[in-house]
């Protein structure tokens, strides 16, 4: 009588993240250091005053959220549909969640800056609006993942959404910018001047490096959590 044993022995457990991933600590330290430099050692911008300092968080987060997190999610989605490797799905998932955090930071710091400079919490500024839509898109992605229980189907659906979203973003940018150029904003002020004095530029670049580090650290952490979760789910199903 065939016993129906699985012909494959279970794979070894993935590495469990130790108490604290050192990379996260380094990244956070880096960000703190940047801020000390930004606040104490970088000159105050002439027109905007001290409020401009928030741009070191705001602008870099925005850049990372869109160009790193979202692009990573879109590429991982496309590759998943092609290669069907679960790891890619986990990368997409992690990139989306961490990306959502960064986007939220942008949406919070933006109005704070805006209130100080423009006197209004929210204006339909092109960049901020586009970021808002990006936030909605990533949120929809995560909600979709939450609604589908079966792992294979969840990966497929999210991948489809990820790819379609990457087609959508250019359209959103196009529409929003076209909309804005025809509707002048209440007060016209450019958020960052085109040529920055050296010290500010350096601070910007360092801030960018620190935030990228943070992103990678968080991504890695989230990825490990996803791997563990899937591993546990697999073992449970085998026992069933």
């Amino acid at each position, binding site marked *: 009588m065939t016993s*129906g044993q*699985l012909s494959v022995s279970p794979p070894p457990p993935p590495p469990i993240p130790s108490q604290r991933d050192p990379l996260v600590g380094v990244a956070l330290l880096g960000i703190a250091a940047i801020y000390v430099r930004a606040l104490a050692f970088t000159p105050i911008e002439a027109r905007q005053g001290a409020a401009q300092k928030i741009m070191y968080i705001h602008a870099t987060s925005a850049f990372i959220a869109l160009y790193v997190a979202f692009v990573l999610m879109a590429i991982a989605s496309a590759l998943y549909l092609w290669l069907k490797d679960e790891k890619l799905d986990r990368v997409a998932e992690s990139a989306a969640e961490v990306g959502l955090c960064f986007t939220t930071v942008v949406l919070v710091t933006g109005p704070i800056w805006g209130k100080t400079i423009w006197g209004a919490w929210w204006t339909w500024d092109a960049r901020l609006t586009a970021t808002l839509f990006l936030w909605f898109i990533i949120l929809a992605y995560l909600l979709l993942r939450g609604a589908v229980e*079966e792992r294979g189907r969840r990966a497929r659906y999210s991948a489809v959404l990820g790819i379609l979203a990457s087609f959508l973003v250019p359209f959103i940018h196009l529409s929003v910018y076209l909309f804005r150029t025809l509707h002048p904003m209440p007060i016209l002020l450019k958020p960052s001047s085109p040529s920055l004095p050296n010290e500010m530029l350096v601070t910007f670049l360092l801030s960018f490096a620190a935030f990228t580090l943070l992103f990678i650290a968080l991504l890695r952490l989230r990825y490990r959590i996803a791997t563990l979760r899937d591993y546990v789910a697999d073992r449970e*199903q085998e026992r069933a």
Partner: protein
Amino acid sequence: MQAEGLVRTFGGRRAVDGVSFTLHAGDCLALFGPNGAGKTTLLRMLAGLLAPGQGTVRVNGVPVKEGAAARAQVGLVSHASMLYGVLTARENVEFAARLYGLPDPSGAAMRALELMRVEDRADAAARTLSRGLQQRVSIARAMVHAPKLLLCDEPYTGLDDAGSAALTAALTERREGGAALLLVTHNLAEGLVLATQAAIMRRGRFVRHEARELLDVRVYQAQYRELAAAHD
């Protein structure tokens, strides 16, 4: 029809674990096995509804998964009726006939309904029919395009005596017309009436598979009961 090395995994579990067999025209394989053995998954792979993780299914040499043309030769009767409740029995079967590109869809639909003795309810909405009548319409639907390979997943469930007789007659006619049949059933007696081969599936594998003449019915009965009881 040729199935080779079929494997299908769901999550961490192998629902179908290495199944291979061949059916020629006029063959009828009666497949028995406890619930959860993987019979439905196997049938869905053979019908082209599910992609095998490994292995291939070919009908007349053409792989069923890519080839839409290969699917034209296959008919499936499954647990669910696959009917549109709001449409009438006739409309359901006619739609299927059109999907398969038949030259005379309404005629073919009527003939299929007559075959299963439901022609008098042809214009009733499918959802108003009893479960047994729906089953008959579903079977008519599966046969309307005269498939060379008929896959039936517990087709006798819900049928009364008249329905069962109609089904057996229809299946016999198809088999004599050169079709291959695969019959999944819990009813040993009915299954063996038509069968030229018999098999028992357990935990994704064929644990027994032999020609009709060679099998000992009592052994099958005992084995089957034992397997069904022992299934955890």
